C-alpha cells in the first residue's frame, strides 16, 4: 500500500521529480484533499453567518465570542484535539448520540476528523470573512435599505460581491490550513491508513521509518500546494482594487 516504503532503501539515489511523485502516498493525498474540501465547504456555510454576526452585531459581549473563535490560532493543536476527542468519545452526550445513530463512535473516524478540523480552521475562515464584511462601506448598506431591499438580499447583492477578495482569502486559508494540520488530526483521528492518515501524518510516519526520500516528496507537494494557494490569495487581494475602484 505504501509505495514509498518499498523504495526507502535507495535514499542515496538523487530522485527526479517523477520518482518523487511516484513515492507519494496517493491514498493519503486524496484523503487529505477530500478532508480539506469538505471542511472548506462546511466552513463556508458556517463561517458566512458567523462572520456576518461578528461584523454587524452591536452586542456588547461580542468580543468574548470573537476571542473564542480566535482560540485555535494560539492554542497548541493538542489542547483542542484533546477536548474534541473527549467531546466525541463514548462518555459525552454527542459521542453517545452519534453512536446510537451510526453504531460506532466518532473518535478515530473520518467524520471525527472533519469535526476537529472545522473547529481548528474556524478562525482562518471567519476572520477574513468578517474583516471584509466590515470593510464594506456602511453607506452602501444604508442605500440598499432605503431602496427597500432587505438584509438578506443586501448580503448577497452588495456585501458578498464587495467582499469577494476576503471570501477567497478565507476559503484558500481554510483549505491550506486543513491540508497542513497535524496535531488535531493525530489526537482525534489517530493514524489509520485510508481513514485518518493525512499527508502531514504521513510525513511524520516516513521520518519515523527513516524514509527521508518519501517524506521529502510529500513535503514538497505540500509546499507547492500552500504556495499556489497563498499566491492566489495575494494576487486577488491586489487586483480586486483595480477591477472595482471606489468612486
Amino acid at each position, binding site marked *: 500500500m505504501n509505495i514509498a516504503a518499498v523504495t526507502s532503501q535507495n535514499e542515496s539515489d538523487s530522485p527526479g521529480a517523477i520518482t518523487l511523485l511516484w513515492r507519494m502516498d496517493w491514498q493519503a493525498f486524496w484523503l487529505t484533499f477530500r478532508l480539506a474540501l469538505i471542511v472548506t465547504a462546511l466552513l463556508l456555510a458556517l463561517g458566512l453567518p458567523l462572520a456576518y454576526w461578528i461584523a454587524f452585531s452591536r452586542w456588547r459581549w461580542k468580543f468574548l465570542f470573537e476571542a473564542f473563535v480566535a482560540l485555535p490560532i494560539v492554542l497548541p493543536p493538542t489542547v483542542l484535539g484533546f477536548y474534541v476527542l473527549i467531546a466525541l468519545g463514548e462518555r459525552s452526550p454527542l459521542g453517545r448520540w452519534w453512536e446510537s445513530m451510526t453504531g460506532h463512535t466518532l473518535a478515530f473516524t473520518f467524520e471525527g476528523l472533519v469535526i476537529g478540523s472545522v473547529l481548528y480552521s474556524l478562525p482562518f475562515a471567519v476572520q477574513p470573512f468578517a474583516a471584509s464584511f466590515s470593510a464594506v462601506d456602511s*453607506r*452602501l448598506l*444604508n*442605500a440598499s*435599505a*432605503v*431602496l*427597500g431591499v432587505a438584509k438578506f438580499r443586501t448580503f448577497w447583492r*452588495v456585501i458578498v460581491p464587495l467582499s469577494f477578495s476576503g471570501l477567497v482569502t478565507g476559503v484558500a486559508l481554510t483549505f491550506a490550513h486543513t491540508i497542513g494540520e497535524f496535531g488535531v488530526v493525530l489526537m482525534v483521528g489517530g493514524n489509520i491508513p485510508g481513514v485518518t492518515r493525512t499527508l502531514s501524518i504521513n510525513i511524520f510516519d516516513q521520518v519515523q521509518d527513516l524514509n527521508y526520500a518519501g517524506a521529502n516528496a510529500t513535503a514538497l507537494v505540500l509546499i507547492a500546494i500552500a504556495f499556489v494557494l497563498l499566491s492566489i490569495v495575494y494576487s486577488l487581494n491586489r487586483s480586486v482594487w483595480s477591477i472595482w475602484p*471606489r468612486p
Partner: protein
Amino acid sequence: MATTVDRVNPRTALYPTNGTGLQVRVRRTLAGDAGGFELDVAFALEKGITILFGPSGAGKTTLLDCIAGLTNPDQGRIVAGGRVLFDSEEQSNLSTTERNIGYVFQDLALFPHLTVEANVAYGLGGLRAEDRKQRVAGALESLGILVLRRRRPAELSGGERQRVALARTLVTQPSVLLLDEPLAALDLPVRMKIADDLRRSIQALPIPVFYVTHSRDEVFMLGERMLMLERGKIIAEGTPHQVMSAPRSETVAQLAGFENVFEAQVTSVHEERGTMTCEILSSGAKARVSGTADGTAEAVPFQNLEREGRSGSNAIELETPLVRAEVGTKLRVGISAGDVLLATSAPLGLSARNILTGRLLSLSQRDMIVVARVDCGVEMSVHLTLAARDSLELRPGRQVWLIVKTHSCHLLAG
C-alpha cells in the same frame, strides 16, 4: 393638487399615485462635539421642493436619517404618503426597507460593482423581469443616461453619477424624496449647471422633495419654500426671498451673506412713510462680520475709531424699513456689501436715503471682487468691481461716500 399636470413629464407618468405630503414631528438628542443639543422640529411638506437650509452641524442630516428610519427620534411622529412611519406614542416604527422613502445621499452611495443599469434596477427586485426592464429603461431615458447603462460608477463624471443616483431612487416611486446636499461633491464650475438639470428633474414630481443644502445659490435656484435650521430648531420658514432677505438671527444673516452687521437702536418711527430711523451703536457683537458660506465669522477690531474721534459725538443714523418696533428698541441691521454704492464725491439728487462719509481703510481683491473697507464711524465692507476700482483711482486714506438704500438695510432681531 391632484389633477393638474400642465406638462407631460415622463417621470410624472411613472407615478400611479400622488403623494399626500410629509408630516414630521421629531425630537432627538444629538451628541454633538460642543456639549450636544436637541433636534426639535415640527413641519409639514406638500408636493414640490422645500429647501432645508442651515449651517453644518445644525442637525440636517440627522433629520433626514430620522425620516428615512436610519436613526430613530426619541419622540415624535412621522407620516409620509398617508402612512405612519414612526410614532413614539403608538410605538410604531417601520423599518427603513418598508418606508418607501427616496433618499439620495451626499456621497450618492452608488454600488461600485454594479453597472448603471443594475444600480437603477437594484430596488426593483419585487417586479417581474419585464416590468423591471421597462421601468429602468424609462428612468434612464428620462434622465438622459440611457447611453451610460453598461458603465460602472467609477467610469462616470460627477454629474452623471448624480443622475444615476436620482434615477435609482425615483424608479422605486418613493412617497417622499430626500436629497442631502446632492451637489456638495461636485466642482464649482459644473455645480450650477447640474443644479439646473436637477431642478428640471425634480420640480414636476408629484411628491414632496426635501432638499438639504448650505449653499445660498442652490436655495434661490431650487427652492419654492424653505426651512432654516439652526442648532436643531427651525428658526425661519417661508419663500427663499422672505427668509433670506429678512433674516431674524445673526447666523441666518451670515448665511444669507450680510458682510455688515451692526447693533442699532430705533430713534424714531415714521409709520406714514413705512420707515424708521436707527442709530448705529456699534458694529455687531463680532465687530465687522465677513460672512462666508459656512457661517464662520472673522472679527476685525475698530482701532481707528477713537483716534479719529468720531464715534459717540457724531452718531450714525440709518433709515430702515419699518418693522414692529418702538423707539428705543435694540436690533441688528444687516447690509450686504454688494448693496452699498461707493462714490468719490458727495452725491446729489439721489433717491437713496442713507449717505455716509468716511475714509477708505484698505482694498483687497477676492477673485473678481474688490473688497473695500471704509471707516465711516463704523467699519463697512463694500464690494466693487475691478473696473470700478481702477476708474475711481481709489487708495487708502481717501475720503469716500457710501450710499445705502433704505430697503438694503435688513433688520434682524437683537
